[in-house]
C-alpha cells in the first residue's frame, strides 16, 4: 500500500523538482509564469480530462482523443464555410462537434473492441490515419467535392483550406468574462470554472451506475461479462464520452486562441495530454481527476520554462525544446515500460497460484 502511494507521488515529485530548477534557471517573474500557466490550464485542461475515463475502463491511454480534436476543427470550418457567425454559429459549432465526435467515438469503439489488449497501439494508428483523412478532406476535398461558400477560408487557387483560419467571427468575449485582475495576474474565472465543471462531470460520471460498470469492465472483462454487463457496449460508451470531451476541449482551446492552425492544430494534442496526466501521477491503469489537474500544472510549467532555461544555460533555445519533447515522450515510454512490467509480474503470480 505504501509502495503504491510512493509510486503515485514519485513522478509528480520529480516533476516539481525539475520545475523548480527550470524556474531558477529561466529567470522569469512569477507573475509571468502564473499568467501563462492559467492560460494553458484553461486551454488544455479539458483535453487531459478526456483521457481519464478510458483509463478507468481498462483501455489505457486513449491516443484517439486527437480524433475528437479534429472533430472540433471540422465543426468550426464547416460552420465558417456556411457563413454562420456569432452566437448562433458558435452554438452550431458545439452541436456539430458533439455529433461528429460521437460518431467517431462509435467507430473508434468498434475498432478497439476488436483489438482487446492492444488498444493503445491501435488508437495511436487510428489517430495518424484520421489525420490524413482530415488532410484529404480539407486540402483536397474543399473546392473540389465540397462546395466553398466562404471564399475567405480557402486558398487563392480555390482548392484547399488556408493553413490559418481566423475565428474572429465567433468572438463574443466569453474568454474574458468575469476576468478578475489581481495585481498583474489575470484570472479568467469563467474559463477556469468551465474546466472545473468538466472535472466534476468526470467524477460524477464515474460514480453513477454507468461509471461503476466502466470500473468493473476496467478491472476484469471476463468477470463483468459473467455479471451480465455488456462489455463491448460499455467500452463503446467510454470511448464516445472520451471523444466528445476531447472535442469540447479542442473547441475551448481554439476559442481561446482565436485562430485555427488547420493542419497542425490537432497534432500532438494526444501526446501532450497523456504526458500531462502521467506527470500528475497517473499510470496507464489508474487515473483520477486530481492526477489530471496536478499534471497539467506541472507539465506546462516545465513547458513554459524549459526553452527559457535552455536559452539561459546553454544560449540555445532548441536544447530546452528538445528537453520538453523528451520529457513528454519519455514520460509516456517510461510509464508504459513500468506498467507493462508490473502486468507481467501480476500475471505470472496469478498463473502460479
Amino acid at each position, binding site marked *: 500500500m505504501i509502495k503504491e502511494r510512493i509510486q503515485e507521488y514519485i513522478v509528480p515529485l520529480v516533476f516539481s523538482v525539475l520545475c523548480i530548477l527550470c524556474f531558477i534557471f529561466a529567470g522569469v517573474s512569477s507573475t509571468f509564469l502564473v499568467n501563462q500557466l492559467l492560460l494553458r490550464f484553461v486551454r488544455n485542461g479539458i483535453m487531459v480530462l478526456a483521457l481519464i475515463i478510458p483509463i478507468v475502463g481498462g483501455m489505457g491511454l486513449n491516443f484517439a482523443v486527437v480524433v475528437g480534436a479534429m472533430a472540433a476543427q471540422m465543426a468550426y470550418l464547416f460552420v465558417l464555410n456556411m457563413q454562420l457567425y456569432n452566437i448562433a454559429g458558435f452554438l452550431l459549432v458545439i452541436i456539430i462537434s458533439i455529433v461528429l465526435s460521437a460518431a467517431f467515438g462509435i467507430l473508434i469503439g468498434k475498432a478497439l473492441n476488436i483489438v482487446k489488449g*492492444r488498444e493503445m497501439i491501435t488508437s495511436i494508428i487510428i489517430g*495518424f490515419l484520421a489525420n490524413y483523412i482530415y488532410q484529404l478532406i480539407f486540402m*483536397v476535398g474543399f473546392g473540389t467535392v465540397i462546395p466553398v461558400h466562404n471564399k475567405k477560408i480557402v486558398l487563392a487557387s480555390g482548392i484547399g483550406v488556408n493553413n490559418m483560419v481566423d475565428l474572429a467571427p465567433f468572438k463574443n468575449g466569453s474568454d474574458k468574462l468575469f476576468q478578475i485582475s489581481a495585481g498583474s495576474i489575470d484570472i479568467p474565472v469563467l474559463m477556469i470554472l468551465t474546466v472545473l465543471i468538466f472535472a466534476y462531470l468526470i467524477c460524477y460520471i464515474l460514480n453513477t451506475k454507468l461509471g461503476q460498470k466502466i470500473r468493473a469492465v476496467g478491472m476484469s472483462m471476463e468477470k463483468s461479462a459473467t455479471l451480465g454487463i455488456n462489455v463491448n457496449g460499455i467500452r463503446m460508451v467510454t470511448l464516445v464520452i472520451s471523444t466528445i470531451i476531447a472535442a469540447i476541449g479542442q473547441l475551448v482551446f481554439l476559442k481561446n486562441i482565436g485562430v485555427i492552425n488547420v493542419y497542425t492544430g490537432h497534432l500532438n494534442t494526444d501526446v501532450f495530454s497523456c504526458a500531462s496526466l502521467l506527470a500528475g501521477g497517473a499510470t496507464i491503469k489508474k487515473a483520477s481527476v486530481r492526477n489530471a489537474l496536478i499534471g497539467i500544472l506541472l507539465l506546462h510549467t516545465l513547458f513554459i520554462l524549459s526553452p527559457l532555461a535552455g536559452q539561459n544555460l546553454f544560449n540555445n533555445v532548441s*536544447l530546452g525544446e528538445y528537453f520538453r519533447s523528451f520529457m513528454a515522450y519519455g514520460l509516456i515510454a517510461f510509464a508504459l515500460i513500468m506498467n507493462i512490467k508490473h502486468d507481467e509480474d501480476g500475471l505470472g503470480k496469478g498463473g502460479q497460484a
Partner: protein
Amino acid sequence: MKTKWSQIIIAGFLFFLFVLAFILDMDILKILNISFVKFAMNGVLVLSLIPMINTGIGMNFGLPVGIVSGLIGMCIIVNMRLTGIFGFISACAVTTPIAVVFGYIYGIILNRVKGREDIAAIFIGFSFIPLMNYFWTLVPFTNRQMLYPIGGVGLRPKIGLAPYFEKILDNFCVLDIGGLSIPLGLLGSYAILCIGISLLFKVKLGKAMIAVGENENFSRLSGIDIKKVRHTAVIISNVIAGIGICVYAQSYGFLELYDSPLSLTFPTVSAILIGGSTGKRSTIFEAVLGTYMYQTIYLLSVPIANTLLLPQLSEILRMLVTNSIILYALLKQQRRKAGL
C-alpha cells in the same frame, strides 16, 4: 498457400497506376529506372524488420533506434572525410558496433515489455529522437560541411553527401539496355543481404527465432533461452536497420538528422505488410515484393497527382494507404487470435 487479398489489391492498384501513367503519356521507362533505385534504397530497411517479426516481437516501430545508429556511423565517416566506396564500407563498418550497443539496450527494454512491444517501441522511438537531438547539437565534429554555416556549432539537419559517397552503390555497375538502366551494384548488394538473411534462418539461431515466434511455450520446453533469442533478434534487426539507412542515404544523397528518422518508420512497416506479411511471420519474398509495390505506387502517384493539378494529393494518399494497412493488420491479427 492461401490467396493473399492484400497483395492482389495492391498489385491491382499498381497496375491501374501504370495504365494511368501510360494514358497520361508519361515516360514509363524513366519511371521503371527510378523504381529500381527506390526499391533497393528502401529495401534494406524493410528487410531489417524480418528478424524481429519472425521472433514474435512484432513490427519494429522502434526503427528510429536503428536508423540513428546508422546516421551516427555515417556522421563519423563524413567527419573523417572518407570518400568513395571505401567511405561507404567503413560507414557500414562503424555503424555495426553502434547499432549493436543501441540494439542491446533496446532489446533489454523490449524484453521487459513482452507482449506489448509495439506501443512501447513507438514511444521508445519517439523519445529517443529528442535525446539524440542533443547529440546532434552538441557533438564536437569539425567538418565545416556538416555544421551550421552560422555559429559553427551543431550539425545541420540535412548534410549533403555529394563529396563523400553519394550514389556510390547506385552508380556501381549500371547495366544499360536500350534506355532501361539497371543498377546492378545496388540490386546486387541488396540481393546479397536478402540471401544473408535467408541463410540466417537456416542456421540454428534462426531456427530458434522462428520457433520462439511460433510457439513460445514449446520452445521453452525444448530448452531454448527465449530472452536471449529475442535479444539477439532485436540486435540483428537493429544492425540491419543501421546498414539500411546507409544504403538509403547514399541513394538519397543526404544525411537527414534530427526528427526525420521518425518519418521512415511507418512507410517501412507498411511496405512489409503490403507484401503480404501478417506482422506475425514474414518471408524475404514478402519484404521484397512489398517494398517494390509500395515504392513504385508512391513513385507513380506523384507525377499523376501533379498532372491532375493536385500535388498534395499523392503524399496524403500515400500516408493514408500506409496507415490504413497498419491498422488493417492490427485488426486482422487480433481476429485471428480470437478465432483460435
